[in-house]
């Protein structure tokens, strides 16, 4: 029987939502290949939300528990997943901070190739075919995974989590002995308590058109009015020290796929467009009607952002019944 292994993620003892996307992707491969889905859950105790894994297609849920696994333990996680992957045809991870760190370690241990940040998976001739953005999304590569197991990390927000109820039989997975070469000592709160641009469903980004760092308050206000929104930035303003590099959208920053991306005072350099072109809806606000950002925007307003943005914030508040 073809066995597909999905690696789930938890934070603070709660299953991360992205894990359901990984399980769904594994389920679809299993259905196409005539196989089963095992999900491995790694933690220091019970993981809340892991009961959902069956609903999204897990035949079996393997739980690996170790006192050192409250926080990420790279060497221990790698040893555990490598053991669980024995005999698997495919192993899938989320392309998150943890998955991106863990998957290469497991691939090296198993001596198999790894396709990272995959946005689509298919099965052709019994082989897994992965589609993945390269050159920061300026091109797409189609890659055939010939290794055993075939391994991939899946970019969050690109493969939908869909329900496909299975038994989800619970089993304990023994944790193999491992040498803890790296120790994660703590997870600190970020400097700002704001949402991460890579995860937020709405991103409001500012560029050089904002003229000075203090003016980002206008974007913070718009993001607050929209709710569930993060404030992003172009490379120019990050390089100028106006915003933290964690907020940078583009080829040397983050690639984002929110439902709504609002580009304010951003001309749309090719490296910026590469980072946000997969957003569902793009709004551009810019003084220059010929700015390249308008070529990718669904909706544009030409004019002075210092008049447009406060008005937009007011209108959104009105819509939300707060104005």
């Amino acid at each position, binding site marked *: 029987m073809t066995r597909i292994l999905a690696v789930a993620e938890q934070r603070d003892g709660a299953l991360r939502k992205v894990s359901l996307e990984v399980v769904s992707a594994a389920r679809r491969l299993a259905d196409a290949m005539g196989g089963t889905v095992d999900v491995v859950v790694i933690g220091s105790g019970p993981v809340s939300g892991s009961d959902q894994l069956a609903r999204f297609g897990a035949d079996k849920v393997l739980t690996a528990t170790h006192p050192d696994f409250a926080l*990420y333990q790279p*060497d221990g996680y790698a040893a555990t997943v490598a053991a669980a992957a024995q005999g698997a045809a495919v192993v899938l991870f989320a392309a998150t*901070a943890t998955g*991106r*760190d863990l998957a*290469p*370690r497991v*691939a*090296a241990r198993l001596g*198999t*190739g*790894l396709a*990272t940040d995959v946005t689509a998976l298919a099965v052709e001739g019994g082989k897994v075919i992965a589609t*993945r953005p*390269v*050159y920061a999304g*300026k*091109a*797409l590569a*189609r*890659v*055939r995974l010939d290794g055993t197991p*075939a391994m991939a990390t899946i970019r969050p927000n690109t493969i939908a989590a869909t329900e496909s109820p299975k038994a989800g039989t619970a089993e304990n997975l023994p944790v193999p002995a491992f040498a803890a*070469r*790296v120790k*994660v*000592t*703590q*997870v*600190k*709160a*970020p400097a700002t308590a704001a*949402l991460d641009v890579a995860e937020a469903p*709405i991103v409001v980004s500012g560029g050089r058109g904002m003229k000075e760092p203090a003016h980002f308050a206008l974007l913070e206000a718009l993001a607050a009015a*929209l709710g569930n929104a993060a404030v992003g930035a172009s490379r120019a303003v990050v390089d100028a020290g106006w915003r933290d590099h*964690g907020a940078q959208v*583009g*080829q*040397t*920053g983050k690639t984002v796929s929110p439902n*709504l991306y609002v580009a304010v005072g951003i001309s749309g350099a*090719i*490296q910026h467009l590469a980072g946000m*072109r997969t957003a569902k*809806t*793009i709004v551009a606000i810019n003084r220059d009607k010929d700015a390249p950002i308008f070529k*990718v*925007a*669904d*909706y*544009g*307003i030409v*004019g*002075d952002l210092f*008049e*447009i943005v406060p008005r*937009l914030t007011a*209108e*959104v508040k009105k*819509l939300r019944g707060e104005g």
Partner: protein
Amino acid sequence: MRIAVCLKRVPDTTARIVIAADGKSIDETGVKFVVNPYDEYAIEEALKLKEAAGAGETVAICLGGDAAQETLRTALAMGVDRAVLLQSAAGSDGLEVARALAAELKGGNFDLILFGKLAVDDYNHQVGPMVAELLELPCITSVAHLTVANGALEAEREIEGGIEVSTASLPAVLTCDKGLNSPRLPSLKGIMAAKKKPLEVKPVTLGAGSLTLLGLSLPPDRKPGQIVGEGADAVPALVKLLREEAKVI
């Protein structure tokens, strides 16, 4: 302190990507190639750490074609002591690249092996941790803050909604993120000196690997959008469209 920095030659991030006739590579005509931007943070960190230690050696290693000698000369011009080109055709399997690098690094007696967190061409972000596994060394990826003292290191990396703090002892492998430092520009003196620094060329053959690139394509164009209007007066119409047509607010 002995530090190795592994580099890649990549197209400049401002380059427009045109797919070549073979459908599997990019047309390099008119494309400017640079040191992978994340690798510049690795170079800078290596130079800073060696300066702080007051002694040691920095070595830049690059796997690539002959043109990658230019990439290595840039690192030498920034201040790296010597360079090694592992001369090879490009491969599509990061593990094969990691194996070739690990073979070169093994026995090099390095205290630190630094990489960029990813290469902006293939976006693989995997070779650094794979090398660490092959050499059985501690590895921390996407490091944005680092302190090294008394043979131990503490590193911070950004995770979703937080900063993960890790410790390890040397020797170790790190991959470097933006924010770690501000890479220096090569000085004129550095550029002149780089011409005389040793650059060793070693041909290597990559294994076939287990990933087969079937083809490259350009992403689908977005459907044409509309200019809703000019100035703040266009805002109510925009809000209506976002609400009723796009259904995103």
